[in-house]
């Protein structure tokens, strides 16, 4: 192995993780990552609901504005949005810049997911609700959205996994999250005349994979549970038009995007 020839497998390289300082650094970075993720998760879900409702609105200007917002920010690289937010508005608050950038992009994706979910609720439900004399807001909040969220929960959680992975983009704006810290540790610690890139990457990579697998495990569990529950309403299938025949069971632990994405939203990609 060339790794060991270069001294990357030497015990000293891995011993650095026994120092309390480095452990403390990694723990702090993990907290920073989770903080940004938590803010971004809440932000993207709130924004997602707002945008989805706006796109389904009866008022043309509202609908158009929401559609334009979603289309523009969904087709832009997240990195560019985060950087623009940071330079333009929040140069001194990198955590908020990261959280807001993540919320904008993922909010747009979540809005599309929710919209697909609302559209998948059988028409009769909405008509029945109107026939009972409910107002538009009541129909949306008590009949349509709960069913949309329930049907789309696995997809929503998969998107949260993507959000978690994307917190690592914080390195561009120098937010001290896990990856940025890993880079700092690796480039500031000199062991045997070498920088311990291999060992730090292995350690932080394991942490990321464990976090993501835990979240995708949750998504798979909810999906299985949802399939077992007898609600009487077919769970909305979020496949692209051509993939209805797709086998229902996805790969175990498949975290990212189920092939396709919500129907009638060309170019949506949860990667």
């Amino acid at each position: 192995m060339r790794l060991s020839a270069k001294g990357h497998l030497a015990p000293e390289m891995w011993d650095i993780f026994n120092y309390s300082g480095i452990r403390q650094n990694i723990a702090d970075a993990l907290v920073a990552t989770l903080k940004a993720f938590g803010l971004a998760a809440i932000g993207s879900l709130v924004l997602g609901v707002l945008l989805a409702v706006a796109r389904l609105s009866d008022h043309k200007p509202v609908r158009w504005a929401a559609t334009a917002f979603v289309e523009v920010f969904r087709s832009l690289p997240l990195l560019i949005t985060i950087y623009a937010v940071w330079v333009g508005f929040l140069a001194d608050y990198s955590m908020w810049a990261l959280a807001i950038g993540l919320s904008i992009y993922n909010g747009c994706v979540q809005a599309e997911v929710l919209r697909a979910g609302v559209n998948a609720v059988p028409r009769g439900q909405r008509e029945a609700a109107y026939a009972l004399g409910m107002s538009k807001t009541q129909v949306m909040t008590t009949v349509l959205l709960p069913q949309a969220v329930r049907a789309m929960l696995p997809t929503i959680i998969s998107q949260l996994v993507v959000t978690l992975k994307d917190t690592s983009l914080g390195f561009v704006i120098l937010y001290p999250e896990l990856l940025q810290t890993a880079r700092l540790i690796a480039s500031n610690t000199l062991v045997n005349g070498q920088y311990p890139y291999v060992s730090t990457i292995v350690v932080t990579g394991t942490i990321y994979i464990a976090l993501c697998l835990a979240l995708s495990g949750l998504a798979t569990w909810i999906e299985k549970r949802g399939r077992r529950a007898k609600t009487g309403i077919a769970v909305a299938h979020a496949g692209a038009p051509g993939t209805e025949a797709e086998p229902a069971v996805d790969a175990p632990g498949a975290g990212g995007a189920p092939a396709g994405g919500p129907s009638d939203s060309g170019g949506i990609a949860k990667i």
Partner: protein
Amino acid sequence: MNVLLDHFPEFRDGFIGTVEITAISSVIALVLGIVVAGFRVSPVPPLRFFGTAWVTLLRNTPLTLLFLIFFFVVPEILFPGMSPFLLGSLALGFYTSSFVCEAVRSGIGTVPLGQAEAARSLGLTFSQTLRLIVLPQATRTVLPPLSSIFIALTKNSAIAGAFSVTELFGWQTLMSEQGYAIAPIFLWVAVAYLVVTFAISGLFRVLERNMEVAR
């Protein structure tokens, strides 16, 4: 407007860089993705295990971390002194290959089982069955998800800019460091990305129209 006119050569280089890295890593992702999808449906358990591990690991690793691996670990083990452009394309290609693999695999799932059985009873080998019978039929269903995967790849290529590959994100940081207002820079970068992504979705629409498979 001034930002663009004053620095048009850099902008053009960035745009070409984005297109190039997208094109090369698309090819890598497509080839690897189809091969790994073949592994995942193959009758050989170790290959299946390898395919599953590949997809699970790559899908749950942040792309940024993968870039770190390719820029700091791969040159140590394999060929030292590879260009950042090549390393970036490889990182992007490997990451995207896991998504391509899942799309292709679900496409294979839509081809009726009888087709593969008939091919096998005619005496075709596994790779012949996959190559001649199943994959051509799966192509049609795979195109829409592939189109969104490649659009995502275009967007992800921005990360390469943070790793000293010449592309549009590099232009954005360069311009804002030179003190231009962020809004017009953002606007031009946005327009450039929209051009690339619209080109990709247009290309796939044409492909879809031309590759219809009668079932």
